[in-house]
């Protein structure tokens, strides 16, 4: 097994799921959401490169073609812009496509359809047309994927009106947010992370949805507020758990779940207590989710802030392919812990 697959698997093993109930993996949770919706709603269909192949999108879509037929679950040409427009057109005319990509990097081919079309049609048509479209992709960090295969591009889409952007971090959320995305009448981009795919978690059976724009506390604490999503939030949790054990440092850790819409209230609520903000994101620190959350707080909750905001994302460089350079590139629980310590010690 390759180094990063091993890492992901081990990581999944060491982290035991919290709570009571049925335990399944992240990919199983996602698949369950798809099965439920495919059964319930004949308008839903799945497509994407290799959606029906033996890999089946990390296993998420494996077997679904056999279950629901080749008409509703199908492979596509390698034509991201065209297929995004085709999905948009299908959504405009009554269907509910769920379009899978292996990596968010490939969404860059479809920005015209995403930004100029899918996200604007409801507005442009004065509400007469809706575009219930789900676009799914998983950040491909690791395995030497390199500059064109590891990007986290949510920051590039954050300011686009009409889009919703979902970034789950647990199997429970992954399922509930995907169900919510399929039910939503707008284009929803789901950005998963490859490194979460083998995670286990408690996941209820049946349909449930997690509201968009509502964050959740993953930890409660005193010294600072940490805000983020997805895999970087998991790192932050590891960091704070360690710091709590070692140095008694605690934090409110807020999982935003969706970055657009973005739950301002929960951030302000927490800051009223802690006065210190750390924003973490899988994308570039500059100009993306970190910047938006940081600015939002400096704008609307300035009086709550007791210290400078800190942000942890990627440096202003493309993601390098090589293993060693990758180690320098990505934040880790250790580097996050370091920043937390600086913030708490007031350095």
């Amino acid at each position, binding site marked *: 097994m390759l180094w990063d697959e091993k890492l992901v698997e081990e990581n999944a093993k060491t982290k035991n799921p919290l709570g009571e109930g049925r335990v399944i993996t992240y990919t199983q949770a996602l698949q369950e959401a798809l099965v439920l919706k495919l059964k319930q709603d004949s308008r839903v269909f799945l497509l994407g490169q290799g959606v029906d192949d033996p890999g089946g999108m990390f296993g998420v879509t494996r077997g679904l073609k056999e279950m629901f037929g080749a008409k*509703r679950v199908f492979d596509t040409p390698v034509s991201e812009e065209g297929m995004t*427009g085709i999905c948009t057109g299908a959504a*405009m005319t009554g269907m509910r496509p769920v379009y899978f990509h292996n990596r968010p990097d490939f969404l860059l081919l479809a920005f015209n359809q995403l930004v100029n079309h899918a996200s604007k049609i*409801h507005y442009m048509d*004065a509400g007469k047309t809706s575009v219930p479209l789900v676009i799914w992709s998983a950040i491909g960090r690791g395995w030497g994927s390199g500059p064109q295969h590891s990007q986290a591009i949510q920051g590039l889409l954050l300011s686009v009106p009409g889009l*919703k952007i979902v970034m789950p971090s647990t199997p429970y959320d992954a399922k509930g947010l995907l169900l919510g995305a399929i039910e939503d009448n707008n284009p929803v981009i789901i950005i998963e992370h490859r490194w979460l795919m083998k995670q286990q978690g408690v996941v209820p059976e049946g349909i449930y949805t997690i509201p968009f724009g509502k964050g959740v506390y993953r930890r409660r604490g005193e010294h600072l507020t940490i805000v983020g999503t997805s895999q970087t939030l998991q790192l932050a949790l590891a960091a704070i758990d360690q710091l709590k054990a070692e140095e008694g440092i605690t934090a409110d850790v807020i999982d935003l779940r969706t970055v657009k819409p973005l739950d301002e209230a929960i951030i302000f609520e927490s800051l009223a207590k802690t006065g210190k903000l750390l924003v973490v994101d899988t994308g570039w620190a500059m100009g993306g989710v970190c910047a938006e959350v940081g600015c939002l707080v400096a704008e609307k909750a300035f009086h709550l802030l007791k210290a400078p905001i800190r942000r942890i994302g990627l440096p202003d460089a493309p993601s390098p392919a090589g293993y060693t350079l990758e180690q320098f590139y990505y934040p880790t629980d250790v580097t996050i812990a370091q920043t937390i310590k600086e913030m708490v010690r007031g350095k």
Partner: protein
Amino acid sequence: MIKYQYRGKGPEHLLALARNHERAQLLALFFTMLRIRMIEEAVESRYHEDQMKTPIHLAIGQEAVSAGYSAALEPSDYVFCGHRTHACYLAKGGDLKAMFSEFFCRANGCAGSRGGSMHLLDKSVGMMGSSAIVAGAIPLATGSALSSYLKDEKRVTTVFLGDAAVEEGVMWESLNFALLKKLPIVYVCENNYYSVCSPIEYRQPPVEICKKAEGFGALSFSVDGNNVLEMYEIAQRAVAHAREKGPVFIEAHTYRWRGHHGSGDDSHTGYRDVQELALWQSQDPVLMMKQVMYSLGYLDEASERVMREKIELEIDAAFEHAIHSANPVKEDLCKFVYSEGDTHVVG
């Protein structure tokens, strides 16, 4: 220098074709063209008043394409188009009042003053929408055809596009997918030899557009787009083929009399020869058809006058309607950014 010759068979051929059609059908076709011409001229004549604060892309000279083509469609068939919307919208039965209201930026415009002239839609008659992005509507229309395929409907979707739209890769991505799934769609390319002020020879090597589509495997036609009956007959074959067998591509040769946008001819600026325009004006699609109607005895001065008066009345009423309609208010601005609509499940 005349770069682009008229290559059709002229009025005699129109007359010959006319003999195979019913009077009523011929009158209807002529009426559609005349109505489009008169509406366009009326819009143009008022454009200098600067009350229609929207770009306009007049179809004058190209009426036969939409008129002839759309006559072959069922009311339940769908149409999409690009920035040159007016004729497509009217030929499909789009509401004139709502169109003028849109031009006058009124709240009751067909796109609620959000879209302007480049975004006309009237879903009640199957006019599904348009995109101001060249080729942007092509995959949308293909997606609409995918909906019909998924729903086992016999609905045909048509998308009108310009000669420049085939330069966008998404044209070929869409056609490839449509052929792959044998979708019920017709691509109607109005080749008027110019993209804004760029002659086609600056943009494409000397290869017929329809030959490219043929190379991709589509049933393809090259048509005299100034001959409404040739257009209509090919459209009937195309729509029938699309409905039962799959994609069709039509290249209709025609010519735009006015500037790319706005009012008036712009040949004096030098990008095309005034002689070229004169040549094409001598093949006026509306006048040719009128002469055929006269020579067949289906129309005379009196009945033509009645027709014109009817259209004039309609135009005046539509202008009145638009001019006296209300502007949008501030609260309208952020409506319809997101669809809150139902997520009604279809079992």
